[in-house]
């Protein structure tokens, strides 16, 4: 018997990464801006997205959403009330979304034409650990954090917050009620992800939403200017 070393040097999530790469070029080709929304459970991703979808519709933009949860289609029903096409993904115990779940939904989504969309939002399963490892082919990863969660959330979960492109602070209408230290929260986010753009929003009052919509529009225009292929 002889022993030998076999060099593999390959990514463990190679399959996911490859699928995500293919999704990304498909999205670029269709000219649709895809965003992956990640946060802990209860941050208000769905409320934030409800408001976003409603405002986009009023502005004449075309948006759709995929929403991941372990169980129930409650979030999809809430989001669908905006009039946008919405699909629920139930992971049945899996704590994050993976690229193949997105691909499968898109493939059997009757009547959905990506090239007729401006935006596709993917609301990930509420979890601040696992979604950071799984690329879904998105162009913008959005980490959300509510003022009720504490100012140091980003320090506790650096892997996720460091992987985000932008951060959204939610429920800012509750800042006073919960004694939220805004300056400290913003400082912590910036320590973990220097230069990150932060939107301070309330889905309830609409504060911060116009800036967010403007950002979406800029990003969508940028996607349309990307080389295809």
């Amino acid at each position, binding site marked *: 018997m002889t022993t030998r070393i076999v060099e593999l040097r390959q*990514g463990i999530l190679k399959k996911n990464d490859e699928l995500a790469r293919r999704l990304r070029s498909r999205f670029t080709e269709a000219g649709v801006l895809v965003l992956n929304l990640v946060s802990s459970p209860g941050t208000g991703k769905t409320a934030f997205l409800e408001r976003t979808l409603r405002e986009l519709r009023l502005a004449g933009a075309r948006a759709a959403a995929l929403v991941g949860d372990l169980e129930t289609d409650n979030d999809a029903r809430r989001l669908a009330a905006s009039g946008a096409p919405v699909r629920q993904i139930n992971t049945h115990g899996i704590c994050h979304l993976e690229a193949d779940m997105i691909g499968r939904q898109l493939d059997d989504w009757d009547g959905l034409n990506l090239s007729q969309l401006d935006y596709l939002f993917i609301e990930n399963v509420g979890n601040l650990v696992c979604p950071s490892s799984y690329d879904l082919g998105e162009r913008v990863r959005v980490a959300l954090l509510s003022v009720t969660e504490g100012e140091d959330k980003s320090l506790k979960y650096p892997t996720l917050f460091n992987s985000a492109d932008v951060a959204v602070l939610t429920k800012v209408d509750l800042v006073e009620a919960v004694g939220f230290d805004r300056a400290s929260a913003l400082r912590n986010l910036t320590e973990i992800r220097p230069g990150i753009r932060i939107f301070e929003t309330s889905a309830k009052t609409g504060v911060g939403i116009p800036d967010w919509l403007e950002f979406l529009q800029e990003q969508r225009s940028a996607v349309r200017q990307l080389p295809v292929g």
Partner: protein
Amino acid sequence: MHELSIIASVVDSVLDSLPQYPGARVLEVRLRVGALAAVVEDSLQFCYELAVRGTPLEGSRLVVSAVPARVYCPACNKLSELENLQSFRCPHCGQPAPDLRQGRELQIESLEIEEAEVTP
């Protein structure tokens, strides 16, 4: 807690590479895991034992080498290890360091296998 799906991918990749070495037995699987990869070695080891049962990997060791987070600072023109994950700053000049160059690795580095005797 997604270490089980990570390990399932490791086992699949190793199994995919084995047909090139007929009859080989796997002795060791080496991984490289970054400080920002969001996985914990203890959980990987625990899941590995479960996942290899009844496969040609059964009885093999899992060796995990940790890759520290390293940032590049353009002012110092240096690649440095982060002192702690709560502050992405260059340890030399203290300036914010957004340019992460290492620490997200989640890789299978190599296998050690025992090859079957080839009868001439």
